[in-house]
């Protein structure tokens, strides 16, 4: 187990190193100069040069890369070109929106998907299964930005149960914050729930075909008991993989949803930073997201071992 973790950790570090090079290289070739973006059309050449020097854009790319990486290692992500505040601070502010949103959406999606998937698997081929599967097909097919539009139209504009967007912050209490994240979380969660329910169902059906399920039935367990006691835990392995993937997706992939609900989250930060050529912010956020994905995968791998004793003893 320890060896397994160590090996995974090593490849994690290597992946991050490669990722940092790729990210830096891709972002630095983007056309557009942060200084001229900030100073606009009437800026004079000397003003531009002064600003570039101030931003540290006048040194070579290799040096900038080194400065960025060494800075990150010591927890210093640099200073945003446009906002002129420390990137680490900006990211942590945005994380207070994105992370709860991702977790909220993940919780919703899991809460919907688990019962739906188990129900469908238990009634394989029956009307209930067909209904759930039909709904998930639709859930997968609906683009989430379109779904978000419809949610706003119905629940914010017509029914006025929720605000049309924006984030109330956590200062007024957990409930107020969660309330303002509800619509975005639903918009994010439903398509994910559809995917998860499908995975859950097919993983369960695979398990149902296993010999040990027959053994369980032969012991006198009813179909339902066998499903719950022996099926669900075994089906967790593929499901965990998907949950891991979804979490990373929710953290990074909510750009469009954050746009629709004007949430000050990470996704919108990158989007803005890309268009204002705030390169250091883009680099750091992308790096953070890659780091999050790799770490989540690492954790998922460790979680496998919790679920599956066969992996635990593989020293």
């Amino acid at each position, binding site marked *: 187990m320890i060896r397994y973790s160590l090996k995974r950790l090593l*490849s994690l570090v*290597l*992946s991050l190193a*490669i*990722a940092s090079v*790729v990210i830096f290289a*891709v*972002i630095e*070739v*983007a*056309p557009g100069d942060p200084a001229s973006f900030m100073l606009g059309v009437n800026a004079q050449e000397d003003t531009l040069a002064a600003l570039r020097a101030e931003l540290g854009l006048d040194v070579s790319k290799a040096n900038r890369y080194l400065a960025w990486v060494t800075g990150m290692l010591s927890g210093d992500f640099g200073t945003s070109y446009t906002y002129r505040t420390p990137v680490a601070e900006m990211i942590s502010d945005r994380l207070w929106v994105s992370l709860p949103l991702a977790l909220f959406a993940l919780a919703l999606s899991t809460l919907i998907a688990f019962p739906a998937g188990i129900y469908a698997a238990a009634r*394989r*081929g029956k009307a209930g299964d067909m209904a759930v599967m039909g709904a998930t*097909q*639709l859930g*997968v*097919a*609906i*683009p989430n*930005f*379109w779904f978000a*539009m419809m949610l706003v*139209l119905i629940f914010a*504009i017509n029914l006025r149960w929720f605000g049309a967007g924006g984030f109330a912050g956590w200062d007024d209490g957990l409930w107020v914050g969660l309330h303002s994240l509800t619509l975005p979380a639903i918009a994010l969660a439903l398509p994910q729930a559809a995917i998860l329910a499908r995975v859950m169902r097919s993983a369960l059906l695979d398990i*149902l*075909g296993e010999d040990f399920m*027959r053994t369980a*039935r032969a012991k006198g367990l009813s179909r339902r008991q066998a499903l719950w006691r022996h099926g669900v835990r075994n089906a967790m392995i593929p499901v965990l993989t998907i949950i891991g993937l979804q979490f*990373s*997706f929710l*953290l*990074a*992939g909510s*750009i*469009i949803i954050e*746009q629709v609900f004007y949430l000050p989250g990470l*996704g919108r930060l*990158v*989007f803005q930073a*890309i*268009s204002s050529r705030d390169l250091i912010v*883009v680099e750091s*956020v*992308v790096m953070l*997201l*890659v780091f999050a*994905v*790799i770490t989540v*995968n690492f954790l998922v791998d460790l979680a496998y071992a919790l679920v599956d004793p066969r992996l635990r003893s593989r020293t």
Partner: protein
Amino acid sequence: MSRNLVLGGLLSSLVVLAALMSFVWTPFDYAAIDIPNKLKTPTGEHWLGTDHFGRDMMSMVMVGARTSLAVALVAVGIGMGLGVPLGLTAAARKGSWLDEVIMRGNDLVFAFPSLVIAILITAVFGAGAVNAIIAIGIFNIPVFARITRGAALSLWEREFILAARVAGKSSARISAEHILPNVMNLLIVQGTIQFSLGILAEAGLSYVGLGAQPPTPSWGRMLADAQTMVSFAPHLALIPGFAIILTVLGLNLMGDGLRDWLDPRLRVART
């Protein structure tokens, strides 16, 4: 053949037909702007109404199908074209450094937030259909590489592969002759699924303005254009929205149906 396959096949061929049809005939010129006739609801003349520039929605949806299908198809093609050989190679050299490099590379690509990278790519190289294809295609490579490797690995354990090795065939030759044909079913099924994901991805990119550029219509951009008008001209958003949903639904149903049809294991229900 299952109901899924029939329904999915019908929906998909409808979309393909509309796309092909648009090459020879559309009710109107899809790019013809006619401001006085803007925002018309469906009429006898304009079957699906007109958009905010007075363009014929029917023609735009038909040509939009062409864009969506082409982008998604080529992107999946890139994914398959590169991913399958990589997966075959990794499986043939299982455990070697090459396998390790390919698989770690895959993990790395997977680790990147796809939408962010797609936005970056289009920011770097400019918005447009070609760059959208590349952005979507890149993320298809590891999907196919993984699936191919997984399936190929279990095939390599089979005795008929051993028989081919006894016949002195090289691993490249075995991969092409024995492995590839036997993973084809799986690839076809995954292909339809990636295809539908590609259509969604294209819609998403076009929605943020990074897909095919005007005047070439695209469903995602039609949606983006329509979103502020939903409250007074809902058909502008509903029509491309339904086009996307039906296409993706059709492809997914077809994928599901194909899986059941091609995989006899699943056809016989076990207790």
